[in-house]
């Protein structure tokens, strides 16, 4: 036996290979997650399809239905994109904090999401931008909202023969502001022990729309929908600031692990959310 490695040059070719190759078939984008896993547990049969040479997957552009980010866009491409910086700045902040420069040059947004880690740095900023996951197979295309794409711990709604081709995200509305912050065990090259992304659309001091997403605080990247609903329509008052942290703490489901403790994670998630709201109230 052995593993067959196929290098796809076009999306169509990749999809065909995905449908027809000797199973198990694995997709390799930047390989920064996969190669680490393979070091301990190398594959010994089936096919590996290399996605890194497919131009269609690397597109980042504004489309009528939203901003489109190809699944093969590297963290470096996200980090350096003027379009994203203007329209979905939290993605840029998150991408700039992934691993170190080497990982950013290689790792992709698609791999980050498909790896299905609750700590994936790109998940919270995508969630606050109402991201849709664009999936394709030889049978056709499907779009799934990212918050329902996550099914459970390390489980995603990716069907046999399908791959992620990109993400459609909602650009920042007028009056909108975004925030992303990750806490790791050191300043760089650190997996998030807590991450928080927020998008608030303000009219004066009133919150019209709120999105709050959290990483490493549950078995999946989480949207704090109850807290969002509670916040929408409220003034940025002292009471709001006091309360929002508690609302967020009420929805998270953190655990104790080698990186952190559940109690700390819950507390700090509330603080980060509250701190951002407070900074907006203070007008900075």
């Amino acid at each position: 036996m052995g593993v067959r490695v196929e290098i796809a040059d076009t999306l169509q070719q990749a999809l065909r290979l995905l449908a027809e190759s000797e199973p198990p078939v694995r997709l390799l984008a930047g390989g920064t997650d996969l190669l680490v896993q393979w070091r301990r547990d190398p594959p010994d049969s089936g096919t590996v399809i290399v996605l890194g040479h497919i131009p269609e997957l690397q597109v980042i552009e504004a489309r009528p239905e939203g901003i489109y980010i190809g699944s093969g866009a590297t963290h470096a491409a996200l980090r350096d994109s003027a379009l994203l910086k203007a329209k979905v700045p939290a993605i840029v902040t998150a991408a700039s904090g992934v691993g170190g420069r080497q990982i950013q040059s290689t790792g992709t947004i698609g791999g980050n999401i498909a790896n299905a880690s609750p700590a994936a740095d790109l998940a919270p900023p995508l969630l606050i931008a109402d991201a849709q996951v664009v999936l394709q197979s030889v049978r056709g295309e499907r779009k799934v909202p990212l918050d329902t794409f996550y099914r459970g711990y390390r489980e995603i709604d990716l069907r046999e023969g399908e791959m992620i081709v990109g993400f459609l995200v909602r650009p920042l509305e007028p009056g909108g502001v975004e925030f992303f912050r990750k806490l790791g065990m050191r300043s760089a090259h650190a997996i998030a022990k807590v991450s928080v992304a927020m998008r608030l659309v303000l009219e004066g001091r009133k919150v019209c729309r709120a999105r709050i997403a959290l990483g490493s605080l549950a078995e999946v990247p989480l949207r704090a929908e109850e807290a969002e609903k509670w916040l929408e329509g409220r003034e940025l008052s002292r009471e709001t600031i006091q309360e929002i942290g508690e609302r967020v703490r009420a929805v998270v489901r953190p655990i104790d692990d080698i990186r952190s403790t559940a109690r700390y994670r819950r507390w700090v998630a509330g603080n980060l959310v509250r701190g951002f709201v407070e900074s907006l109230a203070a007008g900075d």
Partner: protein
Amino acid sequence: MVTVTRRGYIGLPVERTDAIEKAQGKAQYVDDLRRPDMWYGAVVRSPVSHGFIEGLDRDPDFDWSRVVLVTPEDIPGRNVVESLVHDMPFLASQEVRYRGEPVALVAAPTREAARAAAAAVKPRIRAAPSLTVPDDVVRIYKEGGELEYLWRQDIRKGDIERGFREAEIVVEREYRTGYAEQLYLEPQGMIAVPQEDGGVLIEGSMQCPYYVHPELCALLNLPPEKVRVRQTVVGGAFGGKEDFPSLIAGYCALLALKSGRAVKMVFDREEDILFTTKRHPSWVRHRTGLTRDGRITGWQVDFLLIGGAYATLSPVVLARGIIHATIGYRCDNVLIEGRVVRTHMPPSGAFRGFGAPQAFWALESHVDELAEACGMRPDEFRLRNAYRGGDTMATGQKVPEEYGGPAVLRKALEQSRFEARFAHCSRGSTLTDRWYGIGLAYFCHGAGFTGDGEARIKARAAVELAGGGEGGPLVVIRASSTEMGQGAQTVLRQIVAEALGVPIESVSYPLPDTALVPDSGPTVASRTTMVVGAVLYDAAVAMKKALEGFVSQQFFDGADCVLEEAVFRSGSGQAVDFERAVQDYLRTAERQQRFEAVFSLPPGSQWDQENFRGDAYPDYSWACYVAEVEVERATLAIRPIRVTAVLDIGRVVNPVLAEGQVEGGLVQGLGYAMMEKVGVRDGLFEADRLQTYIVPGVLDIPEIRITFLEFPYRYSGPGAKGLGELPLNGVAPAIGNALKHAVGRRIHDLPLTPEKLFRAIEERLVEQ
């Protein structure tokens, strides 16, 4: 800032001898080396933490035709690591005492085949109860439960009862530290090559060729001349390659002799972290009596180290730990009780600092608490209680009239503007989102071996004249001290060049080979520059005298001459070039080519090993660190912003390398202080890779300001004292003290993480 005195090559920032070959990737590490027909070795390990071996089963479906298996019965000599206490077998034959303990060895043509073969050998073991988790040990100890001790040692001075009778205040606290991994870049590795005479050649990554050599003679039942040990380029060690290489060398040698082929074994990162030595976890209780005006009347210390399955180096780690347990501060009545507990984990071992970082975490945290208890600032309290000339330490060693301690303390306080900044510490104020704190640690490191160690080793080293020619060296250093990235090759060449009066390019220092070099003692204990440097200096001076005598006869009709800057000059202005003189000198074979010298302790040194009384070290290096930290209130993220470091390491031989050692030690200490954490789960170290064993990265490093004050070692030519370990010793307490003054709450166990801080102040935070 570096203010060092220069004396020719001593004090000169000479470029590192090994810099270019390493930067260009040309250096050959053991894993780069291939030998003809070489096989790979792998270790069969115990699957349980404790148990009794009933047999080894070989998977009948595995193809054993190209595998060599070594079991304890194959050992020709003694199946025991001689080290200090003869208790650790190379291969467990009856009882296994930790999970992963080697029980058999295999070799096969490829690394993969060797691993597969190792996995196909199944030890049958009757499991027995085990003790693995450090917290359990501490709990049992405090409850007065039963524990097995690998070693005990006490230090007594004065009358402890009286010390507490005189006390007006008594402060009692406990301090803890955990396992830590050396994390040298290059993992452990060796090659053994069988020799035609039935002997064996060992090449590999090690700190101490003369530790490996006698162990292999005993293991293989070979006479000394049939075992040859050669160091290859070493990619970091930090103590982790002090004693462990004897094991892996033994494994390769057993496999090589049985298979008749060269056998290589190089651990991967996981195997290296899981099954090689770690820093001893510690639990230290200080109970201290004080007068209200801040004088220490009595000092009782309970010093517990967790040693793992076998004693190995634990007795000497404990020795260093207890000697440093109260060091620096005057007190007439001291009782220090040291213990090493046996558990069912891999043996704890050497790691930069060797018991001292644990001692100083406790001591320097505690001294801050003592200052507070009597209402003094931490700097005031230290200045009041620091040894003065003529005082005695806990061992009774007399403090010299002039020494570096008070000077580094004052200088660091002044440079960091400690007093003014201390007044601005946040102490958990709710008025600010960023808490600021400043803290200090005042500490030292006994240079060289503990007690009579140096007297027993009698370190020897030599300089040899060589022919030069084609740019070859004229002088070759023969010493067993190893370069492992710390700069030994460079500074020892500087010392010899200086003593001789020749350019450094004429002096070479090849990697040691036991067939060619005398035993200069191991490359440990911050002793190389101080001790081996002193010996080489003397040897070079003897060589210089001999050459000057020769030149004066041969060229100057008996007129006296001096060798300086590679030229022999007589009083009347005649001159002969060094190279020419050496070539002439070597023309007659019977002339002395090799000049050897031996280390001796300062005159009058005394040591009572049983009672730990006397001169614990030939001298001490001193340092004071002042750390400043910032804590973000919303996340409790702790950021060290600046460290002011003032150190007395005696004469600074190479200021750039010395600064590098301080920076490296500081950053390594920062990891120990704030990040590094090896839990124990199911008898294994939990963080077994770089993804989970977190060490600082470049962005975590604060501003570091370094100053050296020179109080030279008085009994050697170069005047250097120890530097290697000192820089790590005081980092954690300096950060811990700064953190205390930032948040208003002290953490007593390492590492200092936001999570721990949160647990400590949770109630207060939730109220806010």
